[in-house]
């Protein structure tokens, strides 16, 4: 920062060098940081690291042994595969549904679009338990969808809808679609609508304009949306617990089971490690794509 009015510093012939202003400010900033840092380090960083590598009464070697088993055991692999598979499916669905909604909200000039944007964002404030509970009413054995199918004569007995992959996919899509919409919305809002007009004027159909102009330019936002949805789906607990139950275990419900029911610290830590690595992998991948997009 340049301070024009400050007198030119004169060299002071003194043995004690006067404290420099920069150092002073730096010390003050450090002082401001201390309480936050203490909380962050003691309340988050150390426990997380300790849990992953040194749970109570369990040597670290046991965690890695358990990790090795999990990556070969068919049941554990099924849980990992199910988690990744469902998260991928939900990610694709959220982007495919969220992007057009975001495009429509950002580009339609009507005041209804403001209302619809609010309706899309509002669920983010609402408890996941409340949101997921709705699917129990719809998909449950005496729920609305089953009854409807029976009454329409499509099936004779209401099919098992709850505790299926479909139920989890629906629940997670409901949970994360708002996030996908917001990320895509802010990306689309940054693209000059004149570019759409220019492309149309040069002979591009709506679909062609979407593919050649809008989607390439909003790719960073789409990548962010996909990352948030994938990471969220891998770590969500409420939805797989209520809608997947014990027949559709995911990493999160499995982790809770190890930590709370069987109190198997090594397995819990190993599961936590797998979950964390998955989330870090997807975040790393997304920032890699983001950087590549920025340079090309």
């Amino acid at each position: 920062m340049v301070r024009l009015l400050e007198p030119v510093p004169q060299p002071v012939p003194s043995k004690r060098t006067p404290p420099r202003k920069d150092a002073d400010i730096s010390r003050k900033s450090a002082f401001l940081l201390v309480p936050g840092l203490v909380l962050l380090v003691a309340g988050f960083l150390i426990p997380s690291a300790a849990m992953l590598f040194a749970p109570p009464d369990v040597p670290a070697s046991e965690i890695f042994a358990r990790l090795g088993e999990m990556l070969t055991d068919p049941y554990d692999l099924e849980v990992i595969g199910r988690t990744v598979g469902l998260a991928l499916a939900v990610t694709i669905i959220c982007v495919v549904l969220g992007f057009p909604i975001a495009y429509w909200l950002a580009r339609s000039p009507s005041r209804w679009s403001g209302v619809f944007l609010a309706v899309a964002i509002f669920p983010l404030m609402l408890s996941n338990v409340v949101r997921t509970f709705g699917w129990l009413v719809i998909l449950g054995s005496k729920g609305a969808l089953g009854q409807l199918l029976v009454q329409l004569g499509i099936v004779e007995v209401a099919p098992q809808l709850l505790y299926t992959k479909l139920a989890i996919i629906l629940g997670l899509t409901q949970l994360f679609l708002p996030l996908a919409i917001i990320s895509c919305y802010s990306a689309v809002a940054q693209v000059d609508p004149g570019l759409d007009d220019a492309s149309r004027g040069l002979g591009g159909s709506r679909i062609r304009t979407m593919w050649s102009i809008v989607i390439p330019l909003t790719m960073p936002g789409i990548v962010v949306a996909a990352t948030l949805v994938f990471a969220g789906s891998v770590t969500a607990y409420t939805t797989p617990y209520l809608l997947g139950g014990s027949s559709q275990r995911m990493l999160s419900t499995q982790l809770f089971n190890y930590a709370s029911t069987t109190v198997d610290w090594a397995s819990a830590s190993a599961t936590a490690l797998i979950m964390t690595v998955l989330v870090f992998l997807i975040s790393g991948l997304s920032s890699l794509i983001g950087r590549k997009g920025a340079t090309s």
Partner: protein
Amino acid sequence: MKRPITAALAVIGYVIMIVPIIFVVATAFTAGSTLRFPPEGISLRWFDEALGYEPFIEAAISSLGLAVLATALALLVGVPVTLAIHRGKLPGKGLVEGLFLSPLIVPELVVGLALYQQLMIGMDLDNFSTLLVGHTALMLPYAVRVTGASLALADPALEEAARGLGASPLRAFFTVTLPVLRPGIFSAGLLSMVTSVNNVPLSLLLQGRDFRTLPVTMLDYVQQSYDPMVAAASTLILAATVVIAVIAERTVGFAKIFGGINQ
């Protein structure tokens, strides 16, 4: 409609987001005693039951108290951090900010497990204190990032101007910097409160006999009994959330609050 595909996808998306919420409300008013649809008659009995159900009321009070304390604590330590990052001469600002945002990246369930093992079992801390530490750590990113956004928009020359006019550093902070930060603090506070009250994964393993949070209590109840009381409780939560959303919209605009954290 000029874009039939877009329209169809938008309808599907909104149905998935909204219809389950409508079903929750509809079942809450049933006179019957199962989660059957269509509901058997209309009554308010399940609201009565929910409001008279001790564990829910106690958990609701606990959750609110925890959220208020954790938010206050997060702001109290988080706002100075924001000031240090944006106004101080700090080496490695990006790194410091990244460090304070890191609780957003680690899965909450994993953090919950860590705190359960290390603080509750390892250090014999009671479950309320552990929850408070965990929730505060989780709210820190909001306090740092959201107030930082409003500070980044403000001209640093404002404080210098105040100082030039004769204000002491403390006075300049309270008369100039704090008012600039106010919308950011409000947004961060609101976001933290809502996130804390609704949290399941972090709180899940940290429940105790005498201090339980509301969402986890509801989750346990759903697993045990299949009656519409949870629908009634959910409807009450929905109503409260709508009120908060309206307040947020009137004050800062909630698209701003919820758009901010992802960027």
